[in-house]
């Protein structure tokens, strides 16, 4: 079971990194969410073998380790909140630029233009 999870974690991280390297903001966001899922699974695997539900009053020796579950739960909530905010920013970005593509850095473009044609004043800052 753990071997399956380990493969799943690897695939999730791989897909996430691939998506983050795209230029579409929505894909980047999905990529971040996928990596976060991988990290949560990793936390579960870190807890060791599966056991009975850790509920007070039952046999403590057969418990699954409850701590990684608590950690994963916290991490899920945090990822949820941050992803929601990032989606709002993506929507704002789409309203402002009518495009989902992350633009080039304006300062970088200015310096690049400056290097191509070195006039005395440089490009205009906007």
């Amino acid at each position: 079971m753990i071997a399956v999870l380990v493969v799943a974690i690897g695939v999730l991280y791989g897909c996430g990194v691939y998506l983050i390297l795209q230029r579409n903001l929505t894909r980047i966001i999905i990529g971040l969410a996928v990596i976060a899922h991988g990290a949560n699974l990793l936390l579960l695997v870190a807890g060791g073998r599966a056991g009975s539900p850790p509920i007070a009053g039952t046999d403590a020796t057969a418990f699954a380790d409850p701590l990684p579950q608590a950690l994963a739960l916290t991490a899920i909530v945090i990822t949820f909140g941050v992803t929601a905010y990032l989606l709002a920013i993506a929507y704002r970005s789409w309203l402002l630029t009518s495009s989902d593509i992350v633009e080039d850095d304006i300062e970088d473009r200015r310096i690049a233009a400056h290097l191509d044609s070195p006039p005395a004043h440089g490009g205009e800052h906007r």
Partner: protein
Amino acid sequence: MSDLVIPVALPLAAAAVSTMLGRFPAARRVIGVGTLLATTAAAVDLLLTVSDGSVVVGHIGGWPWPLGITLVADPLAAIMVVVSSLMLLVVLVYAIGSPKTSDETGFFHPVYLILAAGVSLSFLTGDLFNLFVAFEVTLTASYVLITFGGDRLQVRHGVTYIVISLVASALFLTAIGLVYASTGTVNMADLSDKLGEVTPALRSGLGLLFLVVFGIKAAIFPLFFWLPDSYPVAPSPVTAIFAGLLTKIGVYAIIRSHTLLFSHGQPSRLLLVVAALTMLIGVLGAVAQDDVKRILSFHIVSQIGYMVFGLALFTLAGLAAAVFYIVHHIIVKTTLFLVAGLMEERAGTGALRRLSGLMHTAPVLAVLFLLPALSLAGVPPFSGFVAKLALIQAGFDAGAHVTVGVSLLVSLLTLFSMTKIWAGAFWGDPMESDTIEPRRLPPLMVGATACLVVASLAFVVAAAPLYELGEVAARGLVDPSVYVTAVRGG
């Protein structure tokens, strides 16, 4: 115990109240300033308790160690909480005076208070996962603040900042998972023992992963590229508090993890090289820039190198100098960004090629800029000189001659880029806009900035006792047994 909880819990509660008082801006301001005053008082009290090198521990919720949430204040953490609370307080006053952030219906105050809680928790936590939560609280608040105006530039550069922070968070979570898998605990005092038992290869792998995670937050070479892009677009008070505190949380986490969890006991060649490159690349970036805030942002990167240098030596003197340097840097850097905000407020731009002659039209501004700028470059008798002298002496004692040489060269280049701002913005003929229709600067903004300048001067006067305090903190870092025993027995 209450001193430990107040800096974290009070701002959170105040943020909730502040959100509900959206229609009463005056009440919001009173709550914000009052909360941060109380936080500062609690932090100072905490520092007085631990200034003899002792450690205060609190187990939240009464769960037995090492299961529950542990808050720990050793001298280093207490120093950081005091300085950060003070900065948060002064910058809030500045923000209240600033037209960009005094937006009466906006969410500036509540979000700012949440940031304050996150910063305090990052310093006081004694548990890796809790550190992750503290980072997230701080970062989430900072995401809102950096895109506060919601204009095109802020959204574009805010996205860079958010995405890179989220990647770092995912890596942090991964690192925590791996640490838990190999040791079965996330409590830092407990890990201090148990990480000694894992295989050396695994231990250095984990150490490297944590260095990358915290290195992204601290903006060390080669992980700094996001900082000069994203910081300058935020409103001035926000940039100032980010510049002063957020990267220093990363530096604090590097220091904490490399003394408590992955202690070397001897100079680390990797960290020395990283420190030298961070200093050099940062300052070269600054020399090439034209905008005041961008120049200052590259200087943050450069200065982080000095702090990592102090840590990399792993000697008492090196760590004491690093602690002293961090405090000096937080004060001076925050001040410089506040002054940059004032310049923008006055002239309507931060581009050096458009600024000119501010010395004639705004002499107060010139003085407010000059003092911290000389301090940043390390000109005697300012605090930067004391900090750099201590660092360089420690470097010579430990035999790190190359990095010492680099740091001296970087000081010179820092002075050069400060004179560049001076020559561009303050010398020359007054700008047309400034002579025809001079803009008045809000007195609250000038007052807050002046307070910080005075604080940085007072810092020099009290350098000797403060350096001793730095040494007390460093002693606790070199020998973490006091920390570990206190957490275990508390």
